[in-house]
């Protein structure tokens, strides 16, 4: 039995894990319907904000396809930008307050509305929460660049959510083409038609490992934007998830840049912005980040020689959460059952290993007995 086959199987388990971590297609559609309704409310002709021409669009993990379910509860984040295309010269606080007033004019939204430092949150209890960040176009930079209030509502900060999303997407162009060809050949598109790349899955796995490891010390947790940026830079269009993950984990430290001797993670769409500003004031965080990455690498490698799904589950549970791992294993089993019921399943002579490539096709059988 070659290591390659074990890696391939481990990849399949990890794929199911990332599917389990992901926002489901129906959750995604629901969120999309809801934020579009919010957008229409904000832009209703004749209303408070209408003249400012507000447009609402997703940013962050929900846009990138790297969202993960929280370790506890079901509510995931939907980060939205409310870009007001024709905003007069108003200060940050006034702009934020105007959005809040318009939202609270709606009876439904008023009940769900929570004020955050620089944005407004609509809490759809038990489903997700939407953070709506007011923004204005950055007329100097153009190209979708915006200005958003800082946390103290004192300044406009540069931001480029659309640019970042297209940079991230560019990192997957080769693998997307390869996957599209592969799926065209086997005519087996996933039911939602949404192909997820190993990079997106790897980011989800990294983020969940972060959420579990730093559950009780969240201040030390590496930021999602740092994880996502370094992972995307380290990704080499590898198709196998386990190999991609190992490459990414090993490659991430090499993507850290040094500015005046300080480690920095620069925004690929705006090199003036350092996502790792906190590492400057607290150098220990950089060390914690390195150690955390090293621990993930060791933990993943230690699963590979384990034998039997019970042992694998036992190893993965403390890494990613017991409930999630258990559900991922059942997903994995149900994929096998799907191959069985559709007549794709085969057994290799000599070893008895099950697969779909070659060997004895499995006849229909019914397990019986107590």
């Amino acid at each position, binding site marked *: *039995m070659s290591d390659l*086959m*074990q890696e*391939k*199987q*481990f990849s399949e388990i990890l794929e199911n894990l990332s599917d389990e971590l992901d926002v489901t297609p129906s959750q995604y559609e629901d969120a999309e319907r809801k934020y579009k309704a919010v957008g229409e409310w904000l832009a209703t002709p004749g209303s408070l904000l209408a003249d400012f021409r507000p447009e609402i669009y997703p940013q962050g993990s929900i846009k990138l396809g790297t969202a993960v379910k929280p370790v506890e509860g079901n509510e995931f984040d939907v980060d939205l930008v409310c870009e007001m295309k024709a905003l007069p010269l108003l200060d940050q606080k006034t702009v934020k307050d105007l959005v809040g007033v318009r939202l609270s004019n709606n009876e439904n939204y008023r009940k769900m509305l929570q004020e955050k430092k620089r944005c407004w949150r609509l809490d759809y209890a038990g489903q997700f929460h939407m953070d709506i960040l007011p923004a204005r176009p950055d007329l100097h930079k153009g190209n979708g660049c915006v200005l958003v209030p800082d946390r103290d509502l004192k300044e406009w900060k540069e931001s480029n959510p659309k640019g970042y999303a297209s940079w991230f997407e560019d990192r997957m162009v080769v693998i997307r083409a390869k996957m599209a060809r592969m799926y065209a050949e086997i005519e087996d598109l996933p039911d939602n038609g949404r192909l997820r790349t190993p990079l997106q899955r790897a980011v989800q796995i990294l983020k969940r490992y972060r959420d579990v490891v730093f559950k009780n010390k969240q201040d030390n947790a590496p930021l999602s934007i740092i994880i996502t940026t370094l992972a995307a830079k380290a990704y080499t269009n590898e198709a196998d998830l386990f190999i991609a993950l190992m490459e990414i984990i090993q490659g991430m430290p090499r993507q850290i840049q040094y500015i005046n001797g300080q480690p920095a993670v620069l925004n690929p769409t705006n090199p003036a912005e350092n996502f790792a500003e906190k590492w400057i004031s607290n150098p220990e965080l950089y060390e914690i980040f390195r150690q955390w990455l090293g621990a993930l690498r060791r933990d993943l490698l230690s699963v590979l020689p*384990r*034998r*039997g*799904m*019970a042992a*694998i*589950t036992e190893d993965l549970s403390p890494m990613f959460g017991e409930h999630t791992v*258990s559900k991922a*294993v*059942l997903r*994995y*089993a*149900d994929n*096998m*059952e799907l191959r*069985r019921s559709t007549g794709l*399943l085969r*057994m290799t*002579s*000599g*070893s*008895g*290993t*099950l697969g779909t490539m070659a060997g*004895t096709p*499995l*006849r*229909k*059988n*019914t*397990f*019986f*007995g*107590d």
Partner: protein
Amino acid sequence: MTVPAQASCLKQSFPESTIKYNRTHNGLTWKGRLRPTAMSPSYLVRILYVLGERPNVTVIDPPLENRNGECIPHMFGQKRLCLFRYKHDEWDSSMRIDRTIIPWTCLWLFYYEIWLATGEWRGGGEHPEMNDSEQKTEQDDK
């Protein structure tokens, strides 16, 4: 299918397995290693077969485990694997053991591993009536 014909097919598909004839009972004992997935242990499996009877499949090593004291699903008396139903015409002695009983054993082991990890049997199947004894269960199934 004769017992020697079964034996030769078994040896062909699993060259490293061992086969012993039981001439007085017109049967054979097969012992071989099966690994249902690359990350599975290699299970030592024994099949006792007497022509005209249900092949008797047991896992010798590693020993099968209970889960928190719960019985393992789809076994006769927690000893033999229940792989098929005569009632659904899934098996008769004209069929090759290496192409039916053994692949089903691998499938059973796959679902057993999932069950041991999660507590759920995802391979489907049917259960005998509550008041049937084990013997009765095996026979009534015909």
